[in-house]
């Protein structure tokens, strides 16, 4: 069968541009984490773009196998000032805006995240104090969601949380997100379910499309 010469997709070599190590990738990934130097490379406009990358230290007592899930994370600088004399809820919204220092968005492909459970918004609400490390670390999976899309989602997460306290129409909001960082957050792999060690939230394993490839990355790490 002759190849289609009209459509000629552009391809990139999956190697870290800094240390030339081979980048592990699932079939759906758009950003990749180098297992050797820990840098993150995302395909943006046909070429690689580097982002900062960190991983969260696994919990001290590991009762179950650990699997790392990718998240986009952003530093948040948000202020919400009431426009004119407002209700008490306006002051709550102001305090809430100051509370957000960081936002997270799931970077793995998940089936109906709002329905099944999106841990990115849970972390954004709770602002957990993760113990983060940089460097090579675990062989964590790449991201199936692009950083541009994640930025838009994170912006709406923050706006939505402020809107829960008071109507956005009565607030003067100034919201700035920092550069995206790819985080690898460890979770317990319980077979049929994935459990977050910090929030105790659970996801059905079938909801994660690339879980088999994410598990394979973890198995390589253990080997």
């Amino acid at each position: 069968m002759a190849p289609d010469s009209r459509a000629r997709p552009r391809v990139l070599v999956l190697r870290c541009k800094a240390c030339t190590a081979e980048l592990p990738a699932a079939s759906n990934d758009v950003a990749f984490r180098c297992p050797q130097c820990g840098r993150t490379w995302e395909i943006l406009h046909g070429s690689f773009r580097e982002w900062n990358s960190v991983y969260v230290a696994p919990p001290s007592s590991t009762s179950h196998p650990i699997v790392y899930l990718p998240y986009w994370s952003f530093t948040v600088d948000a202020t919400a000032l009431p426009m004119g004399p407002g209700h008490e809820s306006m002051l709550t919204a102001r305090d809430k805006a100051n509370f957000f220092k960081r936002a997270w968005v799931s970077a793995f492909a998940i089936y109906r995240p709002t329905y099944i459970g999106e841990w990115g918004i849970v972390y954004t609400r709770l602002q957990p104090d993760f113990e983060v490390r940089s460097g090579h670390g675990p062989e964590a999976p790449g991201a199936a969601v692009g950083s541009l899309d994640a930025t838009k989602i994170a912006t709406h997460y923050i706006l939505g949380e402020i809107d829960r306290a008071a109507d956005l129409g009565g607030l003067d909001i100034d919201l700035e997100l920092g550069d995206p960082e790819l985080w690898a957050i460890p979770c317990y792999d319980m077979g049929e379910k994935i459990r977050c060690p910090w929030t105790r939230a659970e996801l059905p394993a079938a909801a994660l499309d690339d879980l088999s490839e994410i598990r394979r990355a973890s198995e390589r790490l253990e080997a």
Partner: protein
Amino acid sequence: MNDLKLHSVTCPQCGAPGVVREGTRITECERCGARLCSTEVITPRYEAVANLSAAQAVNRARNWMEQQKKIGMFGRPELVLIPFHEVTGRRVGVFERKVPERKRVHRRAYNAETRTMDVESGWEYEEREDTKVMVSDVQHLTPAARTPWDLAIFDARAARKSARLRHFDLVEAQRRATVYAEEQSPSALAEQRFADKGQAEMVAASRRALFFPFWSIPAYPRRSLAWIALAVPGTLCLGQALYATFFGSTVFDSIVLAAVGVIATGIALHRVNRPDWALRSWPEPGTIPRLERHGT
């Protein structure tokens, strides 16, 4: 049945030409072994893993037939992979909307009979402006192939919830199953569905083809003797035609008798050998198989 489209690529590392299959994003250069990734968003293909073996499927079919008080024999079960197109994403946006708000109001009114001021309570409705931040999921799952039976009976969304997906390899799949071809691209479906959705913006959108496995089991229930009504006159006609050929004339024209005999006997043979029913079941334990009339 299924067209395997190939795209030509050139390895950026060694310059060797290569080909990638449609739906494959990550491939390896055959000369230098470098892993190559396409910069374009290519529709990935996944396959739902079947949890029911052929023997289990036949057992379930037999149990179901017994419940229906039908007795019959089953043919060889055949695994069929039917493509569905899934378009998912998240819709985000900030909207101005008007929310109806109800307020309790108390009016003082002069009562002429009692000569006092009475308080009349009631409700007043007014519209309040509200800003709503929306982050919602979008999911569309539609059959992408034309099948001999109606796919509307299959609850693909429910099956998708419990289905475990793995990467779909067309060549490998065609060795063990009949794979139906996709009739349109998921991009066309996405454009059709999300052409004009107002202020909402689709982000993290993904388009993928999901192949759901079905067991197709031909069933031969012993229930009808209608074929005998065709076989008997067919045989008689053929006999009369042979008699006319070898021994002389008959009441009817021998050519007509031969034609009627061949057609009636052929239909009877086809009728007795054809499966009346085909059981098609989503191969997950605990699901109810569907029984359909063949060819409808």
